[in-house]
């Protein structure tokens, strides 16, 4: 845990977007994605406008385009899936460069690509401008069950510890000449997973006892209560409201 408590996706900064209370940002991102998903896919220009809106937010938050684009790579598997769609979908066929493609499939591929990319970009921006602890506080403010938020915070807090434990076990295996090459080595990996489970669970028991001895009674005290003023809500909700206008235009036109 020596690497600080900021996660890799967070980009430290002091922009107006960073300064917004976390729950307003969460609500804004969620509403934005809901609006994007309910836009008709025939309105291609609407998606371009959404992208411009997100780019505006990124500029406002001083998140460089390269960072954003690199993080977008996570959806590559779905791009592969989307590329496949025009070939397997049914219905009217159209010939492009000698290939017979389905019109519905092309629309479907466009739909998944556009909405998926915008969704990923929105969550990347959210994660890049909100600190982890803030994000959890925001989830709690948005009335997620406190127990769920606590579980999530424990997972985040100990995720690195457990991952590190797994990395050490891998190094120990490799330093003894082990290299997983095929099915025959699954047993070793499974034993590692079993050992990792026992260590995680026992660590959980120790953490619980340590917390009990410090007076934990089932709820974490909230030290810094986050509140949002009306102005902050208005600023955060500018994005989904602008998107909603675009979406309505998309339905009307």
């Amino acid at each position: 845990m020596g690497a600080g408590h900021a996660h890799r996706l967070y980009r430290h900064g002091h922009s107006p977007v960073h300064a917004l209370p976390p729950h307003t940002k969460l609500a804004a991102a969620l509403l934005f994605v809901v609006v994007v998903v309910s836009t008709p896919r025939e309105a291609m220009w609407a998606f371009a406008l959404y992208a411009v809106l997100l780019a505006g937010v990124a500029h406002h938050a001083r998140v460089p385009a390269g960072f954003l684009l690199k993080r977008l790579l996570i959806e590559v598997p779905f791009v592969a899936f989307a590329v496949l769609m025009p070939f397997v979908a049914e219905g009217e066929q159209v010939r492009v460069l000698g290939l017979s493609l389905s019109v519905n499939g092309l629309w479907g591929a466009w739909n998944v690509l556009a909405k998926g990319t915008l969704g990923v970009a929105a969550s990347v921006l959210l994660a890049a401008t909100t600190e982890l602890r803030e994000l959890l506080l925001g989830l709690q403010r948005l009335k997620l069950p406190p127990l769920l938020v606590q579980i999530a915070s424990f997972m985040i807090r100990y995720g690195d510890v457990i991952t590190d434990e797994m990395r050490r076990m891998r190094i120990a295996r490799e330093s003894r000449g082990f290299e997983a090459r095929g099915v025959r080595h699954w047993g070793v990996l499974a034993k590692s997973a079993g050992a990792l489970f026992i260590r995680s669970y026992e660590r959980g028991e120790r953490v619980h006892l340590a917390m009990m001895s410090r007076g934990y009674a089932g709820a974490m005290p909230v030290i810094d209560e986050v509140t949002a003023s009306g102005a902050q809500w208005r600023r955060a909700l500018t994005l989904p409201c602008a998107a909603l206008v675009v979406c309505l235009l998309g339905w009307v036109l």
Partner: protein
Amino acid sequence: MHVPDGFIDAPTSAITGVVAAGALAVSLRGARRELGATSRAGEAEYGGERTAPLAGLVAAFIFAVQMLNFPVAAGTSGHLLGGALAAILVGPYTAVLCVSVVLLMQGVLFADGGLTALGVNITDMALVTTVVSYAVFRGLLAVLPRKRRSVTVASFVAALVSVPAAAVAFTLIYAVGGTTDVSIGKVATAMIGVHVLIGIGEAVITALTVGAVIAVRPDLVYGARGLRQRLRLRVNGTLVDAPAPTTPVAARTSRRTLWVTGLVTSLVLAGFVSFYASSNPDGLEKVAHDKGIDEKTEEHAAAGSPLADYGVKDVSDARLSGGLAGVIGVGVTVVAGSTVFWALRRRRSADVSPVDTGV
């Protein structure tokens, strides 16, 4: 398998979101009891406090184990999904919670799986895998002899079934709310075909992992609790059953309020959301209708069913019929889901083991 935004249409996402929220509410209550009595029966009354740290650490474990790649063939490798493993190791309720939290964090933090598709992802990967695998596991344990080996065998089969089950669930969700009209047959073939292969890897690793944990800390394996022997004392040369310690009775809070609220919310949402959703025909349906190519779609297996095409037969008003179909769909889901949970709960309360000393 994380579903991105825009893959499933908005009403279906909303309905699966409601299903996921209901499942989470039930699991939050169930997990308290599961974790309260996992390793030390006497501490059951501390269940509420133990839940967060233990479930959190198990979630971190699942998160880490999903990064454990195992080589499949030359060059390719797969990774564990962990639903079945978690259900067997810590119990179904905790497993649903842990996998859901992992999915939530992956969606919000790592942009892996869309925010609006969270409901789909949780229903598919957290709920279906866990419930199916645990039901299969319990069913097999009831049939097989009470030995350690049967736990390993049962977890193999449970994991093997759980992954294609998730694929089937995804196909069903896609059939209801998919945004592209790839024929359901093709989706099903591709999804289930691939996932049967993944399921074999998952099954082997899950069974071996459960076996490894049972060998060291059998008391930690939730699924193997039935294996515990009764504590017997030798008194004056004869073996006598030790008196069972009084297990604290879990406070039975009103579950009815929760059920009624959940049910009413989902019914209202389903009816309301699809009321608006079905007011316009989907762009594709319209195109298909205009071009006259929708005659082919008669082959759809569910076309003759009373709920086909999101409408109830013999109800002419499109909006009303769409809403009604949504309500009926939610009703069926809730009834099916609660039957499973009720059955599991009955089964569990039946085999409460009085003493937990070594296996």
